[in-house]
């Protein structure tokens, strides 16, 4: 009906290869961007930005990173929290060490430093596979947490052990520090995340992405037809770590402002990001965003309903939240193991041929 591609003829290769080949998708994207850039800042409150929009964007970026590694290249990682911590610490050290440096450059450099660390921990992936690798990446998580906690240099020798982001400006507008307006931080996040997500999308649908997917589907077969597993896997590890690192740097600078590294980026963060890509959809860019929105919003909604509407005690509500959360994950896996992105795809297919069943 509305979602029909009849009458839309592609007359060039570039039209055929577009990210959104169907006109309706383009319009939907435009509407989405208008909402994100105009409606949300217009109607949003401080709480809305700080508790929902900014974390959703940051976790979506981290999930994009993990999705590159796990969803596209098939290497299961449980060290996301550790790599986010690297990004956060790198961001902190760079801003305090080089006060003149542009904040955008700081974020990108934090990502590059994290990419280097990720490369290091990716080396075992050539020999170790599957769950063995997953457990091996936990080594990164625990080792990095310990390192940032123990070595005082990473905290600039502050006695409390917390790292606090100093105020920084981009184009004359404060984006970090206590005085930064939540809306400005949100808009900066949005622009940054959208650009990086666009880059990731183009990366995974090009030759590099195809080599990752070949390795994911069967690494030996991929090796036989000429993909180099070592380079490809390490590439995935470093690109993935870059995204995760930038997400960590943004979490410190734009969202939390001041963190205790080992606490803020613990193993639960790793699991949270893994949940996001599983529920959103492995190997789907959109899945990372939808999953992040889902995982961030769900506990807030649950707590509000249980404590606010049903009048439960906060402790009991917390326990119920655990149960509900776990139950929902199992339910999702049973109903649609390929995530929300897959549901969306099925819905689109159905719409295209509506009212016919096939």
């Amino acid at each position, binding site marked *: 009906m509305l979602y029909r591609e009849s009458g839309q003829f592609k007359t060039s290769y570039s039209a055929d290869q577009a990210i959104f080949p169907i006109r309706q998708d383009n319009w939907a994207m435009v509407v989405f961007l208008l909402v994100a850039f105009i409606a949300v800042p217009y109607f949003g409150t401080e709480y809305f930005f700080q508790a929902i929009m900014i974390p959703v964007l940051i976790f979506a970026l981290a999930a994009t990173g993990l999705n590159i590694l796990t969803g596209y290249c098939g290497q299961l990682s449980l060290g996301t929290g550790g790599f986010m911590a690297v990004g956060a610490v790198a961001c902190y050290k760079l801003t305090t060490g080089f006060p003149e440096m542009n904040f955008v450059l700081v974020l990108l450099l934090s990502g590059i430093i994290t990419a280097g660390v990720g490369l290091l921990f990716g080396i075992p992936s050539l*020999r170790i596979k599957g*769950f063995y690798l997953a457990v091996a990446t936990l080594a990164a998580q625990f080792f990095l947490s310990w390192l940032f906690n123990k070595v005082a240099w990473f905290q600039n020798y502050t006695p409390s052990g917390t790292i606090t982001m100093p105020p920084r400006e981009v184009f004359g507008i404060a984006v970090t520090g206590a005085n930064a307006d939540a809306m400005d931080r949100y808009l900066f996040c949005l622009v940054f995340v959208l650009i990086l997500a666009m880059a990731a999308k183009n990366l995974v649908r090009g030759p590099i992405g195809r080599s990752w997917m070949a390795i994911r589907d069967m690494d030996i077969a991929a090796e036989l037809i000429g993909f180099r597993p070592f380079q490809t896997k390490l590439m995935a590890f470093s690109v993935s770590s870059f995204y995760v690192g930038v997400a960590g740097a943004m979490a410190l600078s734009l969202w939390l402002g001041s963190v205790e590294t080992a606490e803020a980026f613990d193993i639960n963060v790793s699991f949270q990001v893994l949940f996001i890509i*599983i529920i959103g959809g492995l190997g789907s860019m959109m899945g990372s965003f939808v999953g992040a929105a889902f995982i961030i919003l769900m506990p807030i909604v649950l707590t509000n309903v249980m404590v606010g509407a049903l009048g439960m005690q906060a402790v009991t509500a917390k*326990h119920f939240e655990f149960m509900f959360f*776990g139950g929902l994950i*199992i339910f999702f896996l049973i109903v649609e193991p390929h995530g929300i992105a897959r549901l969306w795809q099925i819905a689109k297919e159905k719409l295209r041929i509506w009212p016919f069943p096939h």
Partner: protein
Amino acid sequence: MEFLNLVLVAPIVDMIEYPSFFIEVVFGGLMSGVMYSLVALGFVLIFKASGVFNFSQGVFALFAALTLVGLMTGTVPFTLNKSLPELPAWVAIILTFIVMIGLAIAVERIVLRPLVNQDHIIMFMSTIGLAFVLEGLGDTIWGSEVKALDVGIPTGNFLIGEIQIQIFDLWAAGIAAFLVVVLAVFFQYTRTGRALRAVADDHQAALSVGIPLKNIWIIVWSVAGLVALVAGIMWGSKSGVQFSLSLIALKALPVLILGGFTSVPGAIVGGLIIGVGEKVAEVYWGPLVDGAIENWFAYVLALVFLLFRPQGLFGDKIIERV
């Protein structure tokens, strides 16, 4: 030179100079290794029989220990009222085992059966979900405060020469050894055990000779529940029944990859190696880097080890074909 001396020579000299202290450290390591092995054993049993990497094993131990304490103190479920009769330890243990069997049946019905034939990672994620559910459920039923657990395992310590030995540790090791022997006999000599090994070898072949896969899974998860119960009793008596009990699962993971996912002896030996390695490293090399290396040392040890033997110590040889 100074650095090399500190890292390579000084700790070794220490060990040789005070052998009794070294033995005490190793002994302490062996004992915590036994505890790790107990948890790792539960993982291996389930992974062998159903190919599921059961992340919720630690929470199983927590849940079992919570249930045991609840029954022993006569707590009414969901209310925290202690108005039921207090049960003696052995009755409570048997009842808890029955609860764990019920849990195994529920897990097979609700979680595993609809997910048959899915990717390993999907199964793995579902057990993380299961861990969340059980954590919330255990706390909702029995309350979330720290509880003491005493099933009558004797405590105290005695000296052999200069070496101090905890009686509780000896009991723990004895019970663990007994459990392993019972499991080995069960797997080797009973009809059900043979069926379990057949399923572990090849699901489809086992199905085709008429082994009921569903029942096997229930049995395996029940046995894993029993192992979790024993682990829960040990850890619970040692450090109280509380949320952190579920985190021992994370400690068991390096044990698992060191020993190999599919090997029961691997879980035992891996546990002992990790236990000793981490204690010795903490005591002799820990002070060099300001301590608390216990958290990650096991993982790095396992990681380095895996580089040379990707399938673990006793794991099945990985054969890859296109």
